[in-house]
């Protein structure tokens, strides 16, 4: 007897191009068969009218543990992940202390195992302490399980350090992820432009992002290292990456829900839940990012889930920390920006949440094929629901989408062959 049988779903596997009504069978933590047969199973799920796809992957999540467990833990982030349909999340290293050595990488993996929800893959710092000065022990971190390196929160400012990081990472074939922001051009709290001027808030110009991106791509050209531009926010960055890809550089990029849905006009009213780095930019930037996702310039969708406590987000706009949480509701947000806007269909969007991010960190993930790990998400693409941040599995509530009406939601999440999440009262999918 097999463990799980998912019947009559629309099976979408962007990695193989499969898109058909079929049954999916799971045994011993792996996909045992996809086909028409319906053997006896311990659990059978009717997925008629639903999408059955590889478990979603989010390359960019701040779990805050260790150091800020009052904001989020690896366990609560992993719970939020599976509630949102994600079976794999990458844990950013700007914790306290930072994930910059073997021990701290092992700690993330141990906490992930204890939580037993999603895969939480640790990302290590590029430099010790994330301070941008000395290279961290990337080789040992990689052996311990780090899947990528970044100093996210800030960009690596020094060109020499960045060049050596790329050279070194290329040796172990691990991607360098950059938060593109020239620190010398930083100092603001929202997008620079007419809204910031009117609100009397210091601006962050897109040039700070684009200058670092251009420099990095020059270094990538020379080193040949794999490079991933995180949460790009401007039309200019999209164009820079488009040109780099045309030149054949090994560059990938991600876009967040907020940069695909919100503009700096949201900052009118001084609600710090709209304070994010990189900042919300103009309608033209939002449009360029959507086009970039649509034409493949932007490979992945990633939340940059950044939990903060209520008291921190009740401070004055300029003093409050940057960050938005969206892991619980991201899928519906992506669908709103990309599918319901008519830019792409579900299959095309799901590629940006499965096979594409997997190719960057672990090509064995992100596929729904016989023999692959049974990380599976069942999505009701027609499910209409209202975001209620107070019911998030995440600890944090700094979510500007509270009250938004969305269409499309994960109703069940299977990781490693086990049910990790099932939406209550979804539609009696259990037989």
């Amino acid at each position, binding site marked *: 007897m097999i463990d799980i049988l998912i019947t009559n779903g629309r099976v979408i596997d962007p990695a193989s191009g499969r898109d058909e009504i079929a049954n999916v069978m799971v045994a011993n933590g792996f996909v045992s068969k996809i086909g028409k047969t319906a053997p006896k199973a311990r659990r059978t799920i009717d997925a008629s009218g639903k999408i059955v796809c590889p478990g979603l992957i989010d390359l960019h999540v701040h779990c805050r543990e260790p150091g800020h467990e009052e904001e989020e833990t690896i366990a609560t982030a992993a719970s939020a992940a599976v509630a949102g349909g994600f079976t794999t999340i990458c844990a950013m290293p700007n914790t306290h202390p930072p994930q910059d050595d073997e021990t701290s990488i092992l700690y993330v993996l141990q906490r992930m195992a204890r939580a037993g929800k999603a895969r939480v893959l640790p990302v290590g710092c590029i430099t010790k302490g994330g301070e941008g000065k000395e290279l961290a022990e990337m080789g040992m971190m990689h052996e311990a399980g780090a899947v990528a390196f970044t100093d996210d929160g800030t960009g690596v400012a020094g060109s020499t350090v960045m060049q050596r990081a790329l050279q070194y990472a290329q040796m172990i074939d691990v991607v360098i992820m950059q938060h593109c922001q020239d620190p010398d051009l930083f100092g603001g709290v929202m997008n620079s432009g*007419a809204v910031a001027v009117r609100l009397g*808030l210091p601006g962050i110009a897109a040039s700070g992002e684009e200058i670092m991106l251009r420099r990095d791509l020059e270094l990538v050209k020379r080193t040949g290292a794999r490079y991933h531009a995180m949460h790009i926010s401007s039309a200019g960055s999209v164009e820079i990456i488009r040109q780099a890809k045309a030149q054949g550089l090994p560059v990938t990029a991600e876009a967040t829900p907020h940069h695909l849905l919100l503009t700096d006009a949201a900052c009118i009213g001084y609600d710090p839940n709209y304070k994010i780095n990189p900042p919300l930019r103009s309608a033209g930037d939002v449009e360029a990012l959507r086009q970039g996702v649509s034409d493949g310039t932007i490979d992945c969708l990633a939340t940059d889930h950044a939990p903060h406590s209520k008291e921190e987000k009740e401070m004055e706009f300029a003093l409050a920390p940057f960050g938005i949480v969206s892991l619980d509701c991201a899928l519906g947000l992506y669908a709103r920006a990309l599918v319901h806007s008519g830019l792409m269909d579900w299959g095309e969007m799901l590629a940006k949440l499965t096979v594409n991010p997997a190719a960057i960190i672990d090509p064995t993930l992100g596929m729904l094929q016989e023999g692959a790990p049974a990380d599976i998400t069942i999505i009701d693409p027609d499910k209409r629901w209202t975001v209620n941040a107070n019911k998030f599995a995440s600890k944090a509530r700094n979510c500007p989408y509270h009250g938004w009406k969305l269409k499309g939601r994960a109703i069940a999440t299977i990781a490693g062959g086990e049910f990790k999440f099932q939406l209550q009262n979804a539609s009696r999918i259990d037989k």
Partner: protein
Amino acid sequence: MMTKKASSSSNARPSKSKNPKFLWTRKDLVGLDELSSEEIVHVLDTAVSFQEVSTRSIKKIPALRGKVVALLFFEDSTRTRMSFELAASRLSADTVFLSGKGSSTSKGETTLDTVRNVEAMGVDVFVIRHSQSGAPHQLVDKVNVPIVNAGDGPHEHPTQALLDIFTIRQKLGTLEGVRVAIVGDIAHSRVARSNIIGLRKLGAEVVVVGPPTLVPATITAMGCEISHSLDDILGEVDVINMLRIQFERFSSNLFPSLREYSSLFGMNADRLSKCRKDVLIMHPGPINRGVELTSEVADGPNSCILQQVTNGLAVRMAVLYLVSQSRH
């Protein structure tokens, strides 16, 4: 922004509004951005009726007797604080004062906690000065007491702009078609922002003047023009409002030196001679003599700087009166 409508306006003290049927319903005055042109005119008209109080031998009326005005100055100020304190006392209100330094804010208490604590003591109006843009705006829907913004970061300083506009109206009789130059550090000036908003709402034209490092190009979205040459606009304006230059700005490379700033954007007798004969010279104070203005201009016949200060009292009396009456 967040306004709570009151059911009726008190007639405890009649104001000689040109539109006597106008009903003030606004709980807070956090910025001119939120006010309609009618509301701005109503404040100015109300201030006219309070002007005369300062000329009496007993400078007090009982309009706010028994009320408490809490002056919460999270950022230092001397003249705005004095002006509000005097305005409150002329209305017979009691005042309590809290300064950012030496208070619990320096011990890490949030602004919201401080304000809620003072509210719990039972006060009737908050006057808030804060170094952070938007600080009073973030509070309006979290407290029940009316909030008057006495300056928030580089964002707004509505009572300063109201007294500037009051002074121009007093001198020129109207704002319609009046051309006003605002000169200096526009980027970091709450006085500039509130003035641009208020003047535009009342039909005046505004040109902001300064180097590109101190004048953001996108400020034109607020309805003003930009000039980088003071000399170019001297002959075409009715009012020149000279902003105070902050000395620390040149350390961040926003301009090379005070000497250079003064030579390009300072007002002196030579420049004054190229202006219209009856041009009004204004300054929100305190003046850096010899930088923005030479003494002969600051103290000359075109200067209305001290009238601005005097008018500030009447305007702030009007504002305190209106917001505290609107709650009933």
